[in-house]
């Protein structure tokens, strides 16, 4: 339908709203540190833009784990660097006999993470929401000492977003959040990956037709992809290789 025809129909109130088109292609995800200087491409469509500190933490780590946040629960803070059992902060215990990590605050257990058989995470990278941290554990197990922590952001790039370059009257939302045009075209920044919500883009195509596109994004899948990408990077760095698709700053 041409633009003029649609406007005429809209004016007399008989225009049908355009049908929603669901675009279920995988979205690309960027993990972005505070001052990104090094770029790594994982095979699963995730690109990590790291600074020296976060790259250093991942290079030292034996393993990356994600600490899940239960829905609607308060997120306990990570400990200060050098602390291991700080009151009011998260504590991560490694139990070599049980082969798992136990996360608690004080004496209150929060969650437990099973480790792959035979894995002894003496140096552990922990991802929780917008934080990346490095913990070290004594060989006999017990609470880990917080060595470093830093922030991460996530930039979600909609698949085939270049098709919107010449669209008009465009509005977009991700859940309750209203998105700018530049976000739709270049990427949507999120401070926490588990807050990513399905995106809905509406507008008028270059040919004058109204459209509604819906991207049913799954935050759990994206979070899993992000952690897998960091895990892949850790394994590559541990093997002494500079990852393929990597680019470094000064």
């Amino acid at each position, binding site marked *: 339908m*041409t633009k003029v025809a649609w406007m005429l129909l809209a004016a007399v109130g008989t225009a049908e709203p355009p049908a929603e088109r669901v675009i279920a*292609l995988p979205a690309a995800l960027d993990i972005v540190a505070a001052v990104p200087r090094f770029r790594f491409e994982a095979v699963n469509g995730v690109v990590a833009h790291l600074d020296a500190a976060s790259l250093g933490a991942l290079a030292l780590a034996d393993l990356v784990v994600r600490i899940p946040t239960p829905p609607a629960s308060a997120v306990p803070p990570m400990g200060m660097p050098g602390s291991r059992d700080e009151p009011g902060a998260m504590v991560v215990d490694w139990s070599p006999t049980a082969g798992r990590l136990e996360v608690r605050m004080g004496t209150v257990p929060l969650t437990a993470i099973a480790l792959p058989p035979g894995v002894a995470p003496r140096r552990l990278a922990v991802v929780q929401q917008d934080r990346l941290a490095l913990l070290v554990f004594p060989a006999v197990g017990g609470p880990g000492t917080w060595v470093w922590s830093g922030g991460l952001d996530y930039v979600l790039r909609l698949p*085939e977003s*270049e*098709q919107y*370059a*010449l669209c008009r009257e465009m509005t977009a939302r991700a859940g309750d959040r209203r998105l700018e045009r530049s976000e739709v075209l270049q990427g949507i920044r999120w401070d926490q990956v588990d807050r990513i919500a399905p995106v809905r883009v509406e507008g008028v*195509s*270059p*040919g004058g*037709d109204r459209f509604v596109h819906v991207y049913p994004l799954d935050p759990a899948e994206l979070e899993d992809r992000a952690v897998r990408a960091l895990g892949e990077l850790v394994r590559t760095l541990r093997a002494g290789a500079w990852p393929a698709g990597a680019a470094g700053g000064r």
Partner: protein
Amino acid sequence: MGVRGWRVAVVPIATLVWAAAPEAPRRAAAPADLGSELVRRLADGDVGGAVELARAAGPAGATVLRDLAVSGPPDVVPVAMHAWNAARWEIGPGRAADVVPLLGSFGAASVRAAWDGFLASRGPGTLAVVARLMDTAGFQEGAFRVVPLVLSAMPPIEFASWLAACEDPAVLAAVRRLLRESAERVPDAGALARMCETMLLLWWYADVPSVAVRGWAFSRDDAFVRFAAAAVRRGGLEPVIAEALRRLREGRADRAARGDEILFWVRVAAAAGAGDRIRGALRPLDVARLPARDAAELILECRRLGLADEALRLLEGTNVPWLLYLRSSLCREAGDVAGADAHLEAAFARIGRGEDLDQAAAFETGEVMDRAGDVEAAVRVWSLIIDRPPHGQIQDVNALLRLARVAETRGDFAAALAHSERALEISRDLGAEQTLIGPAGQRGTEWLMRAILELRRRAGGAARN
């Protein structure tokens, strides 16, 4: 003015100004201090006033405004650029009529500068001018020739932006037709890629696949597969894939072109997530007609798409040795070891018997195996080629050189030397119609003699060690 009223005679560029002058609207004389006045207005943020002043000054105003946008005072450049981009097609010196003589002598070095000037002044609107010339008798071919030049003058987003903002449906239709018809005549993958990008930006999805398949035919560049796949996905054009394959089956495309296009559509289906559209769209005969390399790629694509059963169906009843080999690989992957061995032996038997299978076809089978990383099978084929009559052919030399390469890779320099010396012996007796060519076009026998000397040195070193 309608295009039928234009002067279409080819005239020297020097007379162009004179020819256009009587039709040009009366313009105000450019003030001597035009540049400084434009700078003052732009610095004050008075873009409208600056454009008005430039317009009143005619071509001189356009030139001064463009120079300010490119190399004006730093604080004025951004505003000047904005003003120039907004107004250059209104105030530029080129008018539609000016392009006619240029188009008539397109390609001549003498008009190149004038063309550049016209493009600079008309910007993306040049495409619309050229599109309208398509209706002018005698200029249609020229219009097609000029399209690559115009498209290479600026990024596709500029053309697409201009067209998206154009409110005249006749202009849009003319440009769309120009791009579509040019695609059938422009033998330039770069221009075809720019057409695809422009069409995708404008959501002209239905036009993209046919342009992309032309680009693929010239370049075999995967970018064209991505263009077509994007158009198929965004435009919901999945049925186009099966339809294109059906037309290929029934069409008059030659063997090489058919192979190219079949591969293109299979890859598009894979990239667009529409692999199921291939199921049933091809016949065993279509695969049997493909060159060995294309057939192998097609079967590989089917495997990647999870259509191994469809690939097996396409290879049913074949007695072409490379297809028998591909069928054997599929059976082995599916766990049918007996079937795999039987098909592989059938391929070797077909090559060993000779009969109606020429040496080149036998050699191709070895190449398919080698590319698949199955060196053992390839070595067996190359050995069969050497053993079977007719002897002393160029394919015997090729097979011996392949065997020498494998032996060298395995560190068996003595065997590599023996194969190479025998290849040299045969190549010296080849008839005039068969010539051995070395890497990078070197004379084959000379290159081979140097390779033999190197192998003798290495074989001697290996023997001493």
